[in-house]
């Protein structure tokens, strides 16, 4: 049976992880390659590295880091941040990334999804969507949640699916950082609407939240950052818990 995936997400700025960690055994706590290796050894199924650098120099540093990650890790990893055109995708895949995650650039120019799917295959194209629930429903946001759009989450996710996206990474801005669980109703709606896998993001605070994302949200994978970085949830224990709850995970 296909396993549900657990995906730690690392924010990277100027080649270093931004959020702190309490991994005591790391030689360099801020080195994304070391942290990625640690997660891989603990049983993470995939990793996501998000480049939150703004500068041109930082972009080059990130591509160098992608090369080191590819040389070190033997599990798949996705990279995102600052991808605006096909040549950005080519640069990161050539550095050894397995998939790229596109967000604002895809909303601004949806044809980017078609282009990536046609050139490199749907399997490399993860479309990340940041959305917030308000009185009008679920609205998509740009630039890390700073700029609202006219786009509805479900309409945009369906369009991305139809244009050739390989996966949808949905972050609920209402749930992100609150640690009270994922946006399971919206996730279940996405799972019903789409023909591609959905990655749940935003809201993980306890192990049962992961179970609910899979059982109630019907997500194919669940992503989290701080609960892993701060050791509040350890991946081996999380996987043991999920298996005991009859959820299929890779042990």
């Amino acid at each position: 049976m296909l396993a549900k995936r657990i995906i730690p997400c690392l924010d990277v700025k100027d080649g270093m992880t931004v959020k702190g960690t309490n991994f005591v055994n790391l030689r360099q706590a801020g080195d994304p390659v070391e942290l990625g290796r640690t997660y891989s050894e603990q049983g993470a199924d995939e990793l996501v590295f998000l480049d939150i650098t703004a500068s041109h120099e930082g972009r080059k540093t990130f591509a160098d880091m992608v090369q080191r990650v590819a040389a070190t890790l033997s599990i798949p990893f996705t990279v995102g941040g600052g991808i605006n055109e096909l040549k950005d995708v080519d640069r990161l895949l050539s550095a050894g990334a397995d998939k790229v995650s596109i967000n604002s650039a895809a909303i601004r120019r949806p044809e980017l999804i078609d282009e990536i799917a046609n050139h490199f295959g749907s399997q490399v194209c993860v479309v990340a969507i940041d959305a917030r629930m308000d009185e009008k429903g679920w609205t998509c946001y740009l630039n890390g949640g700073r700029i609202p759009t006219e786009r509805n989450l479900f309409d945009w996710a369906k369009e991305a699916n139809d244009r050739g996206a390989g996966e949808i990474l949905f972050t609920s801005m209402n749930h992100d950082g609150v640690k009270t669980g994922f946006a399971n109703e919206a996730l279940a709606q996405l799972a019903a609407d789409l023909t591609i896998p959905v990655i749940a993001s935003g809201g993980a605070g306890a192990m049962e939240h992961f179970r609910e994302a899979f059982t109630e949200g019907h997500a194919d994978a669940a992503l989290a950052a701080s609960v892993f970085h701060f050791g509040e949830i350890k991946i081996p224990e999380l996987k043991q818990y999920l298996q005991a709850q009859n959820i299929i995970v890779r042990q």
Partner: protein
Amino acid sequence: MNVAIVKYNAGNIYSVIHALTRLGVEPLLTDDPEKLMAADKVLFPGQGEASNAMQYLREHKLDQVIRDLKQPILGICIGQQLMCRHSEEGNVDCLGIFDVDVKRFLPQKHEDKVPHMGWNTLEETKSHIFNGFCGGEYAYFVHSYYVPICPDTAAVTNYIQPFSAAMHKNNFYATQFHPEKSGAVGERILKNFLEL
């Protein structure tokens, strides 16, 4: 050890090179028939589209070179599919090493997403590349087409229906999954292959 990787137009081979490097092998990426024939081991990895890949192999006379290899060769992902008789992807005749045709996954219910992507279990493993396996090990898959169960099947995975997760016939080995992306399990398979 002299390990060659078949150079052709099918996708990203960096991860295979990295995986071999981690095992202490420096592979040679080449489309030179003489160098491929002279290698101790040959890898035939790739992601891509079958008919374009076959066209490239034929134009570069690599199709016959691969068929004629006598040393162990390991096809990975599209490599396994190209080693079969025919593929529904682009309706193309392939290398014909394994006497079976490649089919596209047909979803039976909404939850059956195509491509089959992620970690799934290997069952009924039988080949030297699975030395030390007891069944139930997880490997990483990304594919929309599959090889049905046949006499050359060397491992079975179940997605929509049981299919050939790995194959073996004489000196020809193949995996539908990506050993280079399958963590410690994949490393053991590559190590077993290098030790053949």
